[in-house]
């Protein structure tokens, strides 16, 4: 178990290095091939050549690509100093780059935005797990009933309706119509109560989409599991039906749901772009959207790296949980 963990962590680290290199190359090399001068795009359209040259020197854009990648890596661990063009900017470790658009280091921006997204993703996940799984189980147990059909129609709607529709609708009704919520984000550290009420609409909106998917998966898995021989064995032992469902069927149903949860959470932590922009939450998703609009490359690279880190981590957790649930999975 411990050796497995160490191996997986090591593999994750290697993976991260590969991801950083690839991401860096995509964002800094491809524009070069496309004939776009990154330095001038950083400075702005009406920049004088001297300023452009300064930025080029600062960022080391004239260096060969491997030197650039190496500088980037070094920055993560020991920090980095951008010198040239008259002034010197220090970016403390861990330095994930420096945005010349907003004149600030990336890392503090990421750590500032990250808790917002994490809170959104985790809160929504709790909600959609409770809603989706219980709706799916009930549907499976009452298949063909009015409840089952109703739930599956709602689930289909949930899967089909985009966030910017359901989100806007809920904003229109509950914020601008009924004035139940304020519609502004309050950080948890400022006022937990207001943070919570402010997050209710985003949570519900995001959870609606995922709960719908989870309900459908749960229903299908549960129905399959209920047909398994070992469920029949459990009944043949004389177990009460609720125990058969809870102890025998639910445990097997959880495995595919867990896999989905790992991937979905990982992806969401990398930025729930639609939800965050709809509800104006200052999270990673909204940050990266702004960065794309401003062509703020270092921010995009930073968020991309955070996303891959989150996906890697979530998958690791899922693999470990998998082994806990299913004894056939050996962690060696």
């Amino acid at each position, binding site marked *: 178990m411990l050796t497995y963990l160490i191996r997986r962590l090591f593999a994750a680290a290697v993976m991260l290095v590969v991801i950083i290199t690839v991401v860096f190359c995509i964002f800094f090399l491809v524009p070069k091939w496309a004939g776009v001068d990154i330095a001038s795009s950083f400075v702005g359209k009406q920049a004088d050549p001297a300023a452009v040259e300064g930025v080029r020197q600062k960022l080391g854009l004239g260096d060969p690509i491997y030197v650039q990648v190496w500088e980037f890596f070094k920055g993560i661990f020991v920090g980095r100093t951008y010198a040239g063009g008259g002034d010197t900017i220090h970016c403390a470790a861990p330095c994930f780059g420096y945005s010349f658009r907003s004149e600030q280091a990336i890392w503090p921006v990421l750590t500032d935005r990250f808790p917002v997204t994490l809170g959104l993703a985790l809160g929504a996940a709790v909600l959609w797990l409770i809603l989706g799984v219980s709706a799916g189980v009930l549907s*499976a*147990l*009452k*298949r*063909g*009933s009015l409840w*089952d059909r109703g739930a599956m129609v709602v689930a289909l709607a949930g899967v089909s309706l985009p966030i910017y529709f359901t989100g806007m609708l809920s904003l229109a009704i509950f914020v601008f119509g009924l004035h139940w919520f304020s519609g502004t984000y309050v950080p948890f550290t400022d006022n937990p109560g207001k943070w919570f009420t402010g997050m209710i609409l985003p949570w519900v909106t995001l959870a609606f989409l995922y709960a719908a998917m989870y309900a459908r998966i749960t229903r299908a898995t549960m129905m399959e599991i*209920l047909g*398994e*021989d*070992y*469920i*029949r*064995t*459990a*009944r*043949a*032992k*004389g*177990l*009460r*039906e609720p125990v*058969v469902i809870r102890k*025998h069927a639910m*445990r*097997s149903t959880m495995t595919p749901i867990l896999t989905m949860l790992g991937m979905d959470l990982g992806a969401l932590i990398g930025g729930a772009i639609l939800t965050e922009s709809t509800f104006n939450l200052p999270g990673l998703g909204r940050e990266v959207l702004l960065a794309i609009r401003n062509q703020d490359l270092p921010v995009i690279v930073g968020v991309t790296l955070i996303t891959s880190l989150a996906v890697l981590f979530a998958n690791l957790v899922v693999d470990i949980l998998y082994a806990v*649930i*299913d*004894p*056939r999975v050996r962690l060696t």
Partner: protein
Amino acid sequence: MTDLSKTGAALGEPVSGAAPSAFLEVRDLKVHFPTDDGLVKSVDGLSFQLEKGKTLGIVGESGSGKSVTSLGIMGLHTAGQYGKRKAQISGEIWLNGTELLTADPDHVRKLRGREMAMIFQDPLSALHPYYTIGQQIVEAYRIHHDVDKKTARRRAVEMLDRVGIPQPDKRVDNYPHEFSGGMRQRAMIAMSLVNNPELLIADEPTTALDVTVQAQILDLIRDLQKEFGSAVIVITHDLGVVAELADDILVMYGGRCVERGPADKVFYEPRHPYTWGLLGSMPRLDREQQERLIPVKGSPPSLINVPSGCAFNPRCPYADIPKDDVTRTVRPELAEVGSRHWAACHLSTEQRERIWTEEIAPKL
């Protein structure tokens, strides 16, 4: 069923309604499943008795209603069937003086596992992959016995030891996938016998196992039956298995019993053409190797459109012998052909005796 001279009673079949003297008695059991294509008559009027300490072998090809019968006795057609169209079950199943089909379902649930237990065909899929063997046996024991986990675990180890699993105190903590096929079936048997059930139903207990392990498992079932004195139903398509175990044999075809009697009678004086077919298609070591097996031609009947008359008539080589096309119009009822021996066939007993001794027996 009041005219005793014509009906079951004259054939040794008791009158319906009254509690029987036999330990297990099934009367006119029908299990029908409504489907989109029509009503599947998996079991369509089956009767038999079984005493404690005796073994009944139910034989027949796939889809003849063997397993459906056993699940019907266990009450597993109605337990936890969600939203599916419910199986339609009629008839009577008397276990130790209790009629199971009209009994309170929760009462039947309490009988399951304690009074009647079941061994399934494939122990790998019949055991929960996420729980240890011990946990599953302990669970089976604690449903019916109010004991703490320690006591139940001791009982589990004891049972594993009894069914011949080496180092039972260690293996009790293994998961099913860590057992070999034969060991898994032993564990399954240990689990079903943990409450000393009086009725044990073994549904194809050796089909999923290696040939080398099959005999061990059959020996085990036989030994345990002697020890516990329970009634056993062995369901199989393998005549070798019933030859090994059964006191009585019931041959099923198309959801009905076509022949029933003591094992040696059914083996040595079978009186139904389908039984002949089963015997003819069984490989035997004492037969000349050049001779070919005699298969039963055709395929099992559709249980939605069971052939009219005798269900076996499309595949029966002797269907044209009885006059007036009676095999295709009238369903034959079980008739006594010897002591405690019944068969359902339109051929006269003399005709069947002659065909058996002259045509069939010499080729076997």
